[in-house]
């Protein structure tokens, strides 16, 4: 449900592979066998490799087999495969195995990758989002990229020049525990509101051109409800898609800036949850707890807006419902904001083909690749020139460049080491708050107690 750089539709869980009872226990047993028989972890300092070595040296063209793991459902896997056709034709000496994982969230994706590494699978390059970047770097699973960058300095400089300085800074701050470079930044997502101009105009409400307040948002909801019968928006409990947008637009967050202190029960956070709950109570948002397809509901006139990054655009295109939809800023109280999450590409320390891995990453950095991701990618392309270019903005809702502009006010989604557990606690508390089974203050206080034990 929560996805910021690859993208599922909010409120519509991507189908995950069903884990049967027996197969689950068997896989547990299989994983359990690994340390019992004393096998070394594939990801922990494996052989530097004969197929190209490390350090960005070596003459000649790198060759051999390469495994790239990325986040994506079946549709995105199809798009990715198309993207790699060009790479394969340009580098026939490299056998690229690109594997998509349709995880529930980026935190689950990171867990899946960890499990595969522990299972001895030889992964070379992995698309890792904010939620997993710190833990992968701090566990010593990644190869420093500085020698490779030095080798191709001009190419990397050109790429950095065309990518967000904010994300480069955040990568250093959160994913470089020892000062070395482990990641090359990829696509990202911020959170805006997808608004149906048709429903808004039917209610006599003009969508905002810049910021709008919670009160103005509520007033729009009243007009829309009374004149069209549609819901104003959807209110869910996804960490990235629901919790963080309300928090960041009230100057709050789940953790402090360096993710060492919990701020999830701050007065501003409680106020944000209280407001989100009021949207449900007053009938401006559907009751939480079920599943519906927000882009479809918007195209059918049942809902006037929903939150999202780039990924809902893919659904709107599929529904042929892009026209009459525009992106506006999330309504704000204390200050305008947005969460941001980005994916990045490291080379695994256990890779036996690091030079070929760097060749792949170089391709991922290319303008050509960036242009191609526009078609089926669920994230904003890393290159500014692409994210603000016509190929990205055409056949998309009006004002799509807002997703890039929001980087200026964005807050990286806090992702301490035990990210998946932390996310589960936060989402459960938010769900209880918006569904009214706990009052907002109690829900966030209880969550804070649980989070405290996960930070230590």
């Amino acid at each position, binding site marked *: 449900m929560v996805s910021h750089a690859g993208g599922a539709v909010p409120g519509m*869980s991507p189908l995950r592979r069903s884990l049967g009872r027996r197969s689950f*226990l068997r896989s547990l047993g299989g994983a*359990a*066998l690994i340390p019992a028989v004393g096998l070394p*972890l594939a990801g922990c300092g494996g052989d530097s490799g004969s197929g190209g070595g490390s350090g960005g040296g070596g003459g000649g063209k790198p060759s051999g087999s390469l495994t790239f793991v990325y986040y994506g459902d079946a549709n995105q896997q199809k798009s990715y495969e198309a993207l790699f056709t060009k790479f394969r034709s340009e580098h026939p000496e490299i056998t690229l195995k690109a594997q998509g994982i349709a995880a529930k969230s980026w935190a689950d994706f990171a867990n899946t990758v960890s499990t595969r590494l522990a299972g001895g699978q030889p992964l070379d390059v992995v698309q890792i989002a904010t939620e997993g970047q710190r833990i992968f770097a701090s566990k010593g699973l990644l190869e420093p990229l500085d020698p490779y960058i030095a080798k191709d300095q001009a190419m990397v400089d050109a790429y950095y020049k065309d990518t967000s300085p904010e994300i480069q800074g955040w990568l250093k701050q959160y994913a470089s525990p020892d000062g070395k470079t482990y990641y090359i930044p990829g696509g990202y997502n911020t959170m805006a509101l997808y608004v149906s101009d048709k429903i808004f105009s039917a209610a006599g409400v003009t969508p905002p051109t810049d910021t709008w307040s919670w009160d103005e948002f509520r007033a729009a909801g009243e007009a829309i409800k009374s004149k069209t019968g549609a819901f104003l928006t959807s209110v869910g409990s996804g960490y990235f898609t629901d919790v963080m947008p309300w928090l960041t637009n009230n100057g709050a967050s789940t953790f402090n800036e360096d993710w060492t202190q919990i701020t999830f029960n701050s007065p501003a956070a409680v106020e944000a949850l209280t407001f989100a709950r009021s949207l449900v109570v007053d009938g401006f948002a*559907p009751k939480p*707890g079920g599943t*519906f397809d927000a882009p479809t509901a918007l195209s059918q006139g049942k809902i006037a807006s929903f939150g999202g990054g780039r990924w809902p655009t893919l659904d709107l295109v599929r529904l042929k419902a892009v026209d009459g939809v525009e992106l506006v800023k999330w309504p704000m109280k204390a200050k305008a904001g947005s969460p941001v999450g980005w994916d990045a590409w490291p080379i695994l320390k256990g890779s036996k083909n690091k030079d070929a891995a760097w060749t792949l990453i170089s391709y991922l950095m290319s303008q050509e690749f960036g242009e191609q991701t526009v078609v089926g990618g669920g994230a904003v392309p890393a290159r500014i020139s692409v994210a603000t270019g016509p190929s990205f903005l055409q056949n998309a809702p009006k004002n799509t460049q807002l997703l890039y502009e929001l980087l200026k006010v964005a807050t990286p989604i806090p992702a301490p080491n035990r990210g998946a*557990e932390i996310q589960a606690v936060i989402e459960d508390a938010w769900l209880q708050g918006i569904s009214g089974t706990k009052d907002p203050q109690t829900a966030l206080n209880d969550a804070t107690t649980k989070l405290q034990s996960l930070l230590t």
Partner: protein
Amino acid sequence: MSTVAPARVLEETTHRARRHRAGGRSAPLAGWLFVSPAVLLFCVFILGPFIAAMALSLFSYDLLTPAQFVGLKNFRTLLTDTTLVRALGNTFVFAFASVVTHLVGGLLLAVLVNRGLNRVLSYFVRVAVFFPFLISWAAVALLWKYVLDPSFGIVSYYLGKIGITAPGWFTDPAWALPSIIGVDFWHTIGYTFLIMLAGLQTVPAEMTEAARVDGASRLQSFVFVTLPLMTPTLFFASVITFIGAFQIFDPVQIITAGGPDNSTVTAVMYLYQTGFQAFQIGYASTIALVVFAVIMLVTILQFWGSRKWVHNA
């Protein structure tokens, strides 16, 4: 010729029997070869992981860094783990409800189909009841999330038509577990139903006819003749339903992820969360051993109790 052939057959048979007694090895070897695939699978997928889980329960292991021996620390942690207590409590509630509803529901449906319906309708009902069991849990879970959506779901819609406000099926801690029990019943009742139907069809018709001739009513015939003869089937169904229910994972993971407020977290789900979200593989292995012990204990109790109520023909 007609006299020679039987003699030759007898001679060859005798020769094979002698060879078998003299060699004595080919037959056992063949037997082992026949069972070896099953033995191999058992060792790789059941016995091996079980032994590994026992070994891992003595380690602290996060999948990413080498395991560290911690002795019985994981077992001591069990004693103070309130979430595990909650998970086991939920699992027992789920398993008990599952056994009761499946046995009663499956038996009633089987009786209805076995006696009360004509042949064509009977086939239709059999297929209709069993069909959900063929659908994957992922699809079933998503389907019910749509059906029970509080705002757009069909159930909420019709409840609203008769003036009832639908509860938060999966968001209210009081309703979440019963809702999962209901979804599980819909999905798996077909399997219990088939077992019951097969059991009913093994009850000799002459027994019930004799009871009717002796003046027993339909109900008396069912209670005093059919039901006792069905007890082996009921026992079998109760054992496998409990074992299956105690390992419930898929619907909970997909629908509620254990929430709200741990009201639907189950033992296997907690095991998964501990192992593959918290990456405490050692402690997860300890929980796996607890789950194994509980299932074994309850199954032993069921077998012990069966001596008092299961009719052995």
